[in-house]
Structure formats: structure tokens, C-alpha cells
């Protein structure tokens, strides 16, 4: 019954998307909107065909995706163990708390000047932007996740002879993993924001560059295509992530 309903929702969704696109196309064809402001979907599509043909679309998409993935992976690989550690030991949490609080609210954009000074115009700088933009929020999220672990489970583990380090590895890590993964999904979205910002400056590839360059040349269809590509890429990565999640959390169904 649930499956049945999901199927029905999907059909309604597709139908409403089609209706929307049709109206948009018609409005543009009638000339009610200037194409500079909003090109017809068919224009965007033909731009897509053109850019797939010359390989640019794939190149830009892969460039951004690679940057997001590298920056995000590095950020997660540092944030998870560190977060679990801070979540387990109150003293160190207190030591690092002010830094996390101060770093967390900083948008990735605001790191661009410093990162340019420190790292120059390199791919590393792009990774660093993603890293700086997603590290502090990830860390905070992971620490929060460790707090939600049932303290009874920690008691039970200690009662069965687990040391504090055992508790960290055997209880706090797996216990917070579902929430950590949920958080990382959100972080992945933030990482995308970061990379689009980073690609504004000193990039000659990537979807962010594509959008900005499209804007410079007043190619609104390129701008829209770039936006659609971001959506689609994020959605695809989401699906992959979900697969991966099921593997990693066999006990949650």
C-alpha cells in the first residue's frame, strides 16, 4: 500500500512538472517574457545538447563534483574521528568549543580571501574552501549526534567491562553513526554551496564557473542549464549516498 502510494505520488509529481514546463514553454513562445530574462525550456534543452556535444557540460559537472567530493571526504574523514573523540571526552569538548562556535557560522565565501592568500589559485584552494565551509558544521553535528546516545547504553557497556576507549569505539561511534550520516547528507549540500562560491574566483571549469560565465555573456539558458545540472548532480549523489547508507547501517532495517 505504501509502495502503491509512492508510485501515485511520483505520477502526480511528474505530471505537475510537465504541466509547469508546458506553460513555461508556451509563455515564452508567445513572447510574454523576454528570453534574456527567462529562456524557454526548449532553449535550455538545445543549449544542453550543444554543450554535451562539445563535451563542456560533462567537463564542468565532473570538475565541480570532483572538488566537492575531495573536499567533503577530507572534511568528513577528519571530522568524524575528531567529533567522536570530542563527543566522548567532555574536557576536550570544552577546550575546542569556542573555536567551533566561532568557525561554524562563517560562510564558505568568507574564506575565499584568506584561502587565496594562503594557497593561491590552485585546486587545493578549492578543496580548502569546501573543507572550511563544511568542517565546523560537520563537527558540531557529530558532537550533537554523540549526545543523543542513550546514556543507558554507555552504562550497560561499562557494566559489561568496557573501558572509556572501548565505549568510544563500540558504543559512541556506532550509536551516533545514523545521525552522523544524516548530517553528512546535509553537509554535502553545504559543500555544493561552497564549491559554487569557490568557482566564482579563479576557476575556469566547474558548474559555478559555467553559470558565472553564462551570466557575463548574457546567456540565460546557460545559467539555467548550470542550475539544473547542480540539482540533478546533487540528486544523483543523494541516491548513491542512500545506497551507501543502507550498507553502512544494516541494523536500521
Amino acid at each position, binding site marked *: 500500500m505504501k509502495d502503491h502510494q509512492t508510485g501515485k505520488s511520483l505520477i502526480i509529481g511528474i505530471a505537475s512538472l510537465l504541466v509547469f514546463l508546458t506553460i513555461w514553454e508556451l509563455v515564452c513562445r508567445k513572447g510574454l517574457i523576454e528570453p534574456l530574462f527567462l529562456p524557454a525550456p526548449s532553449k535550455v534543452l538545445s543549449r544542453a545538447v550543444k554543450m554535451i556535444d562539445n563535451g563542456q557540460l560533462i567537463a564542468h559537472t565532473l570538475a565541480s563534483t570532483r572538488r566537492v567530493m575531495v573536499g567533503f571526504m577530507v572534511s568528513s574523514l577528519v571530522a568524524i574521528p575528531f567529533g567522536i573523540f570530542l563527543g566522548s571526552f567532555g574536557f576536550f569538548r570544552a577546550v575546542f568549543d569556542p573555536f567551533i562556535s566561532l568557525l561554524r557560522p562563517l560562510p564558505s565565501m568568507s574564506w575565499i580571501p584568506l584561502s587565496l592568500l594562503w594557497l593561491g589559485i590552485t585546486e587545493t584552494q578549492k578543496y580548502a574552501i569546501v573543507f572550511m565551509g563544511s568542517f565546523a558544521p560537520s563537527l558540531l553535528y557529530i558532537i550533537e549526534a554523540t549526545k543523543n546516545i*542513550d546514556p*543507558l*547504553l554507555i*552504562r*550497560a*557497556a*561499562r*557494566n*559489561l*567491562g*568496557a*573501558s572509556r576507549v*572501548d565505549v568510544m569505539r*563500540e*558504543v559512541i561511534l*556506532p*550509536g551516533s*553513526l545514523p545521525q552522523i550520516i544524516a548530517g553528512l547528507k546535509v553537509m554535502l549540500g553545504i559543500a555544493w554551496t561552497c564549491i559554487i562560491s569557490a568557482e566564482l574566483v579563479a576557476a575556469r571549469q566547474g558548474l559555478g564557473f559555467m553559470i558565472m560565465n553564462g551570466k557575463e555573456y548574457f546567456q540565460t539558458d546557460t545559467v539555467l542549464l548550470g542550475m539544473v545540472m547542480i540539482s540533478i548532480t546533487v540528486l544523483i549523489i543523494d541516491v548513491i549516498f542512500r545506497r551507501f547508507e543502507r550498507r553502512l*547501517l*544494516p*541494523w*536500521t*532495517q
Partner: protein
Amino acid sequence: MDPVENGTKISIRKVSKIFSGKQGEVTALRELSLDVNEGEFVVIVGASGCGKTTLLNLVAGFDAPTRGRILLDGEPVTGITPECGMIFQHYALFPWKTVQANVEFGLKMKRMPRSERRNRAAKFIDMVGLNGFETTYPHHLSGGMKQRVSIARSLANNPKVMLLDEPFAALDAMTRQVLQEQLVRIYEKHRKTILFITHSIDEALLLSSRIVVMTARPGRIAQEIVNDLPYPRNADVQLSNRFMEIKRTIWESVQAEVMKSMEVETDQR
């Protein structure tokens, strides 16, 4: 070191526990004393909030008494010790571990080799009748099955003392009965020292060798009754006159304490 009577496993001596929270101090226990002999099955009953869980936490070393002390085999309890295996009302199984891995947990913590702990876990899974569920995650088990895993996990660790905090309260009456019988069988076989908390007088009567009634908060011992009902405590025993008699005694004692605690509750408002 105080001299220890022969056979006294747990000795609770004039223990007080005061919690200081935002709304001031709460005296959960005041000068409570209780001795539990080796191999005894002591059931503690008492009104809600009278300090039963607090007492058990002190024995397990999760918390330290404000005054007084607790001796285990004559040695003061100073921290969490695997010698007192705790079984919680809500099972406290690790959801990310299979039944097998849950039962193995204590052994893994002792760094027992994999094959050895596998065998030992299998034995206890068998004892609680869960063969075939080794690779199942707790999520897929019924409440009764979860509690059996929790018992097996504790037993595999071979604690000298078992502490049970309303272990069957979350189960339905039928499942409860099955587990009660199983616990009695385990007790008869292994002769652990057991400290068991319940709200149910029937349960207390069915399981205990001694029943301790606690007063309303601050908790102290109101009454102790040696339970001399014959084993097995089947339906016939439960409908016997002796059963009724003990039940009535406890009932009256508990009711008096409940009334006191309800007055307190209303006062607080």
C-alpha cells in the same frame, strides 16, 4: 576493613544518597542498611520514586553514595564493576549488534579470543532459547526476546551478582510469565546472588527468596519477608492460601507507603 559475616555478598551500610538539582536537594535514600547473602534472590518492592533504582545504581557503582558505604565481598564498591551484572527495564541492547555480538560483548571487552567467545555466547543464546536468531538485530525482536538476549549477555559475562531493575515491566503478562519461569530456572541452576526490583507483588512472590519493602522517599527498609513458598511456584502455588496470606501482608505494607508517597506528591504542587 569491617569483618564480613560468612556468606554476606552485598552489604549496604547506612547509605544515604542526596541529589542536588536545580530545584534544590532530593534525599533519595536515607541511612538504608541491607545485607544480601550469597545465593539469595532478594526482591525489592516499593512505591514509585522511593529510590529503588538509585539503590541499584549505587550497588552497580554507577553512582557513589553521599554517606555510608556498600561492600561487595567485603570490599567497598568504588566504581563500575562487571562483577555486578545489570539488566535494565528497557534491555539496553546495542541496536547495531546482532544477538550474537550483543551476547559476546562482555567477552570481547575481556579480549577473549574470537572462537572461544563465539562458543560461550552460543551456549547462553541456547540457554535462553534463541537459537536461530544469532544474526538478527535487536530491532527485529519482540520485547520478551530482547530481554532474553539481555539476560544471556549478562550471564555470559559470569557476574557474581545480578541486578535487575524492573526487567519485565515493559512486557505483556504472558511473555512476562514465561521469562519469570526462565529466570527461576537460571537462578536454581547457577545460584547467582540476585537483587531484583519490581512493582508487581505477584512477581515478587513468584521469584524471591526474600522480599524487601521500601518506604516512601527518602527510601529505607519498611519490612522484610522471607518467602517460604515451595518450588516450582506453579498455578497451584499461586492460588494457595499461603500465597494469599503473604500477598495480603505485603499489599498492606506497600499500600501504606504508597499513600504516604501520594500525599508527598500532592504536597509538592
